């Protein structure tokens, strides 16, 4: 939605919340205490009914929208979707982005110091699941005074969290936007994840997960993992269109140096990622993906598993996504229909593959905006100022007027 009235939320600052209440994990272990780093955009209304939680995927973070004053180029990962006048309109909704436990962007994770030992957790950091994340997110909502979410929104692994919210806390969420998701990983998905993990753990610099103590980074393994993952995030057509068989030099070198543009691109992406991401977090995130399977509790019956949910669902897939193809989303929709849940489903014609959920696509964004309008109406989050029909002055006037009625309660 690149209309003239949609803007950035502007400069934002992450916040931090510490939790001393132990978190009992699905794996049976306990995290004695933990910290969550989060950002919020917009204003929580007086009824506290307009909160939207944005859940991140494998490599995402709490930095969903806006930029940092000291680093204006660091724009949030879903900035095209979240902001004033954008599909998730921060003039109506109070939007929360949170870095999940086990992450490497500030929340407690394998690279954090374990208070019990004074050393980084490393290999001792427990495996965390989607269910565990959702519990930790709910505690953050408690802290922010939010009893019930207007919506949880996510793509990919983020979508799994939105879905899990409706099952773990059916009374605390009105809507789930489940984008580019799967109800459980396929064999092929798990296979790809394991190759990525093997690349990391077989790097000599991994040191069994305790590489921090060795002042090392398993950059080669992490790079390979990312290169592999990256291929699965993009469609074959897009790769072909973007890079074709273009060579870095004029002719074949008949050696094993970088020759094709795609090799150069992937290596660059892998190197860049390996410098900023934590290898243990990568392992943990892929495991969380592998373990997610709500139907496991109901003997494989997804409809029965999802019948716990009370929320309305918006499910969207992308036709060129071969990591979580439309058939996987249709499984979710079919199960929701079979259990009589409210659901709308869109199969979006975007060429980019799995990554399409992060990219600009007018139809996709219009659908999300239309669904969020419904959410706003239901939870009393106010109307969308219809930007294109109004002159700029009128719009500012309306915004000023709308702003007066709402006390600023954002944490």
């Amino acid at each position: 939605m690149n209309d003239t009235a949609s803007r950035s939320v502007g400069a934002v600052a992450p916040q931090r919340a510490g939790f001393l209440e132990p978190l009992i994990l699905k794996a049976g272990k306990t995290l004695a205490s933990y910290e969550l780093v989060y950002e919020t955009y917009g204003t929580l209304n007086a009824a506290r009914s307009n909160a939207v939680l944005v859940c991140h995927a494998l490599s995402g973070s709490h930095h969903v929208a806006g930029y940092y004053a000291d680093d204006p180029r660091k724009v949030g990962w879903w900035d095209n979707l979240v902001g004033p006048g954008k599909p998730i309109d921060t003039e109506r909704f109070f939007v929360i982005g949170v870095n999940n436990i086990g992450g490497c962007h500030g929340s407690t994770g394998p690279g954090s110091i374990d208070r019990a030992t004074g050393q980084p957790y490393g290999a001792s950091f427990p495996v965390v699941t989607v269910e565990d994340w959702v519990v930790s997110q709910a505690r953050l909502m408690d802290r922010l005074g939010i009893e019930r979410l207007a919506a949880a929104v996510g793509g990919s692994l983020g979508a799994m969290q939105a879905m899990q919210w409706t099952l773990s806390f059916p009374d605390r969420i009105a809507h789930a936007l489940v984008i580019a998701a799967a109800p459980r990983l396929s064999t092929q998905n798990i296979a790809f994840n394991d190759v990525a993990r093997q690349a990391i753990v077989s790097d000599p610099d991994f040191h069994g997960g305790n590489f921090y103590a060795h002042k090392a980074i398993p950059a080669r393994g992490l790079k390979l993992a990312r290169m592999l993952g990256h291929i699965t995030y993009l469609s074959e057509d897009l790769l072909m269109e973007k890079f074709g068989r273009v060579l870095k030099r004029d002719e074949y070198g008949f050696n094993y140096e970088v020759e094709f543009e795609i090799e150069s691109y992937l290596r660059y992406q892998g190197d860049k990622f390996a410098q900023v991401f934590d290898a243990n977090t990568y392992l943990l995130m892929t495991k969380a993906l592998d373990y997610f399977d709500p139907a496991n509790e109901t003997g494989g019956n997804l409809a029965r598993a999802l019948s716990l949910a009370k929320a309305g669902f918006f499910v969207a897939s992308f036709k060129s996504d071969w990591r979580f193809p439309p058939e996987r989303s249709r499984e979710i929709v079919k199960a929701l229909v079979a259990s009589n849940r409210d659901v709308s489903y869109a199969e979006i014609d975007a060429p980019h593959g799995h990554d399409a959920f992060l990219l600009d696509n007018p139809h996709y964004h219009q659908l999300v905006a239309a669904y969020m309008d419904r959410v706003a109406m239901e939870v009393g989050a106010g109307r969308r100022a219809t930007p294109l029909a109004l002159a700029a002055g009128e719009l500012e006037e309306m915004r000023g007027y709308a702003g007066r009625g709402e006390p600023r309660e954002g944490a």
Partner: protein
Amino acid sequence: MQRYDFELIASWIPERSRVLDLGCGDGVLLAGLAATHGVKGYGIEIDDANLLASVKNGINVVQSDIEEGLASFGDGAFDFVILSQTLQAMRDAERVLNEMLRVGREGIVTFPNFGYWRHRLDILQGHMPVSKTLPHDWWNTPNIHLCTVKDFESLCAKVGAEILDERVIHDGKTVRVLPNLRGSLGVFRFRRR
């Protein structure tokens, strides 16, 4: 858009029914039925623009091909399955009708009556018919399986559907005299015998 077949359909559907609307367009029928009859249901729609309109109209809408999409629904999952002015565009109309009977307790089908006198006159004059109910030219029409009211009765008999109500309407009125000649839109309500 005021559609007379929608009014007729609304008069047949009891409050709080579960309704599946195949080819729901912009979703106004389901949205209207939800508002006036408290029905709960889903629309099936393939077209992007219609899907967006349906989401805006606040209905549950699932983007799918009707002929594939029906397979997602269990036997007897709905009180009513509606196929409004879409049958004529189906590749396998007989299978769609059978699926409607499987998924719904009752089916409602509306379709442009090819037997309408203007259509017959067009043919007599040597042209494919173009009218309010058949607005396309032969070369761009999505309508591949056109039929008359009598033809549809035959198909109902073949698939074992008991016709509960049958109207042929024109310009918002039910045509009682020579309906297959004077009516432009067939509206049928049926169930499995």
